[in-house]
């Protein structure tokens, strides 16, 4: 959930998508401003914090960069439970990753937080010459993926991104931040149920990254 006090919002954000789609690269670009050509596979999930300042609020993202491998699928609910936002990532050069992304959309629609701000990111936009997933439906005989149309139909906002060239990376987080509901009552972040630790938690979350 997004929590806020004054003009500051804490938002849990989860990245989901096929392995190799570029989730870690997107996070790395957003949080550290860097890109590694050979990003290692994520195991389990990696956690990052990053704060983003808007005109009317400061958003502190608590980002869960989840591993795309199948063996972790049953644990995904733990990461997206109570998330204020999700970015579903696919690789524009892989139709299979787009199919996978659609399955994630369905899963979130069924089991995720209904108020979740969900974005669809078509990553690796710099690889235009290897593109397999089209933006719009074309009037040719062969079946063509229509990412933008699909996003519209499903209430997701959509951006084609490139972690490599940094295209649209900040924009996608920015847009999510703008769409987060403001002035929510403060709640415990998902997973912390120990009441005697609640006070400690809000103390520490203010001073650490």
């Amino acid at each position: 959930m997004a929590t806020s006090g004054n003009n500051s919002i804490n938002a849990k954000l989860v990245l989901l998508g096929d392995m190799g789609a570029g989730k870690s690269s997107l996070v790395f670009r957003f949080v550290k401003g860097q890109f590694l050509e050979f990003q290692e596979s994520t195991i389990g999930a990696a956690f990052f914090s990053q704060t983003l300042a808007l005109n009317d609020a400061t958003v502190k993202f608590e980002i869960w960069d989840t591993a795309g491998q199948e063996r972790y699928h049953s644990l995904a609910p733990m990461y997206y439970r109570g998330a204020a936002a999700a970015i579903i990532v696919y690789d524009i050069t892989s139709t299979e990753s787009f199919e996978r992304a659609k399955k994630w959309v369905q899963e979130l629609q069924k089991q995720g937080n209904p108020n979740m701000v969900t974005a669809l990111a078509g990553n690796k936009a710099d690889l235009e010459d290897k593109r397999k997933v089209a933006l719009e439906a074309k009037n040719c005989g062969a079946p063509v993926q229509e990412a933008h149309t699909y996003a519209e139909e499903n209430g997701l906002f959509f951006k084609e991104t490139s972690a490599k060239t940094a295209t649209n990376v900040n924009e996608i987080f920015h847009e999510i931040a703008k769409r987060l509901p403001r002035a929510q009552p403060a709640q415990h972040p998902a997973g912390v149920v120990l009441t005697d630790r609640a006070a400690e938690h809000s103390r520490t979350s203010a001073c650490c990254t």
Partner: protein
Amino acid sequence: MASRRRMLLKVIILGDSGVGKTSLMNQYVNKKFSNQYKATIGADFLTKEIQFEDRLFTLQIWDTAGQERFQSLGVAFYRGADCCVLVYDVNVMKSFENLNNWREEFLIQASPSDPENFPFVVLGNKIDIDNGNSRVVSEKKARAWCASKGNIPYFETSAKEGFNVEAAFQCIAKIALKNEPEDEIYLPDTIDVAGNRQHRSSSGCGC
């Protein structure tokens, strides 16, 4: 370039000895050297990669010996098979009649979960012998038997016309794609928080 994950298919080749299974397979797989295990452990093993539509397949071909002394190995050899190819010699009636035994024996030993629909393919080999004059099993007869056993796809081939072997394996790939199970989620046990007891996943695991 296929974008989706490669499938590995275990294919068992069955049939009387002498029908030409090994020559057919060796020709198809194009191996530079042939393995000589059949006499000792009852099968030769070949790997072949094919593409069907936009998917890549690796065929793990078990070219089994026909002899009875290896019969009890069936359970282990046929375990996890995705498809079975039955080969007979169109010039030898017995080899055609034995197809029924081969098929039944296979289904008993492999005990697939859905025996009615287990994918078989039949190859009628050596159609070119003596320009077809020695032929004793007609195509019509063979197709009729195949139809009666659940519409088993049928192909005829010879040492020269190896292309139909290719077609047979493409057909195997097609059937496998059709039967490809939906990706199931892998669900290991979890440890009960309260009492450190273990919960066994009640729903299926990813298989």
